[in-house]
């Protein structure tokens, strides 16, 4: 027994209130989601200049678009005049400018204020100074990432660094050419659970043999309960009889040409803190973006990415998509079953992590550190 009163095999989770208290969630919004790089959209969702998406990041609505020069731009979706929400649609396309529907303040794609009623009679109003407030943005792996921090942390260290930490080097992910793949399927899951339950679930495989019969059939080593993320640079190997990463183990689609021999017939999983989860298999990539909506509600947007000719050729992707769609539904059902227990009196001090889940303890330490609520263990 240690000083925590737990046997050595077990370490404590976060307390139940960490998953149910709106004040904790507000602090997470402020100190995690509004501070770190946050993946908001597939680059092809805003393929052309003027195409846009509005996304909630933390407590803010963010407008993401593409300027005439093809660069990605992100702005606070708030009119500089009287604060009206500039774009109310989730996605769309403007020809030339964003116009506030209240007083018609009009901004070009670079955020500059280009017109407003009586503006020429106010020559002292700076058109950049009163343009849309911009947010840092990047394109990587064919996704658009934004950071609301005034001084964004290094993208290379935080985002690329998480991928390198899992795969061992940055080249390993480049083999999959994720930016060059096409979206074959997108499914959006609305999950009635705290975002941390979803991330924790992604991190461990102790549950795999119980709730993922199809996945453990394809990846037999998952029955041991050690997630691919338990090791550095380790990919779970397909079973001997398995032809491809599909719901029935039948052959998959065309293999991504860059995938190395030692990556073939293997499954890799990466978590990019705080809200991205990526699966790599030889013929496709599954890219999850987790969007915390409330303390007990999380939206997970999941893309299945294939070689462009596979998608354009109208190949039947159903068996390929169905494997991880089932895994997701099994996982999210488990998370939804767990959420009510978080507010049980019995769970006030939290639960325990078994050895194959101990790396989740590091995630908990990380959350506490971000929130400034680190406690002695």
């Amino acid at each position, binding site marked *: 027994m240690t000083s925590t009163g737990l046997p050595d095999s077990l370490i404590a989770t976060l307390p139940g209130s960490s998953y149910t208290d709106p004040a904790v969630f507000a602090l997470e919004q402020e100190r995690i989601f509004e501070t770190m790089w946050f993946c908001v959209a597939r680059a092809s969702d805003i393929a052309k200049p003027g195409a846009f998406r509005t996304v909630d990041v933390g407590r803010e609505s963010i407008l993401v678009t593409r300027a005439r020069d093809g660069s990605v731009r992100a702005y606070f979706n708030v009119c500089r005049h009287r604060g009206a929400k500039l774009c109310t649609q989730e996605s769309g396309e403007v020809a030339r*400018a964003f116009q506030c529907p209240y007083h018609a303040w*009009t901004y070009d794609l670079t955020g500059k204020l280009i017109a407003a009623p*009586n*503006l*020429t009679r106010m020559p002292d109003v700076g058109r950049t100074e009163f343009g849309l407030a911009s947010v840092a943005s990047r394109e990587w792996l064919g996704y658009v990432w934004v950071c609301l921090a005034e001084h964004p942390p290094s993208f290379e260290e935080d985002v690329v660094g998480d991928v390198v930490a899992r795969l061992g080097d940055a080249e390993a992910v480049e083999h999959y050419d994720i930016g060059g793949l096409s979206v074959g399927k997108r499914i959006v899951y609305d999950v009635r659970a705290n975002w941390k339950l979803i991330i924790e679930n992604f991190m461990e495989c102790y549950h795999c043999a119980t709730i993922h019969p199809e996945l453990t059939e394809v990846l037999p080593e998952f029955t041991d309960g050690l997630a691919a993320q338990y090791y550095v640079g380790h990919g779970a190997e397909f079973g001997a009889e398995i032809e491809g990463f599909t719901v029935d183990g039948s052959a998959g689609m065309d293999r991504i040409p860059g995938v190395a021999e030692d990556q073939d017939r293997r499954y890799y999983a990466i978590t990019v803190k705080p809200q991205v989860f990526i699966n790599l298999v030889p013929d496709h990539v599954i890219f999850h973006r987790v969007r915390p909506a409330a303390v007990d509600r999380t939206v997970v947007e999941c893309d299945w990415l294939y070689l462009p000719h596979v998608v354009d050729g109208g190949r039947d992707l159903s068996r390929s998509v169905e494997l991880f769609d089932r895994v997701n539904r099994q996982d999210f059902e488990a998370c939804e079953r767990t959420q009510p227990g978080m507010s049980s009196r019995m769970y006030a001090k939290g639960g325990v992590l078994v050895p194959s889940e101990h790396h989740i303890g590091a995630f908990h330490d990380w959350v506490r550190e971000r929130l400034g609520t680190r406690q002695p263990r």
Partner: protein
Amino acid sequence: MIPACRLADLPRGEAFRLDSDPPVSVFHTDAGEVFAIDDTCTHQDASLADGWLEDCWVECPLHASKFDLRTGAVDAPPAKRPVRTHEVVIEDGMIYVQLSTAAPNLPACVAARLAGAGG
């Protein structure tokens, strides 16, 4: 005639706004023609020089009424009245505007301000 700017300083597809009262804008079309019209939309106080030039039309940046640079005619509401057109003369690479003597069709608030300023 009022000197506006040098032709060489006004690229095709762009506009130059003269701070006359009421303001006038000179447009250089993609086809290479130069036109001058009143800068203020007849619907609301907006600068047409800030609008979007396409062929011989300029679209108001606020509510999308389009004005024909050749005649001043408006295509569709919310603007209902035409803008004045002004004669353009180019001499030695300099653009000059001969202001129209017709009464301008300004939006109500701008017209009232001009009336006040003019005594």
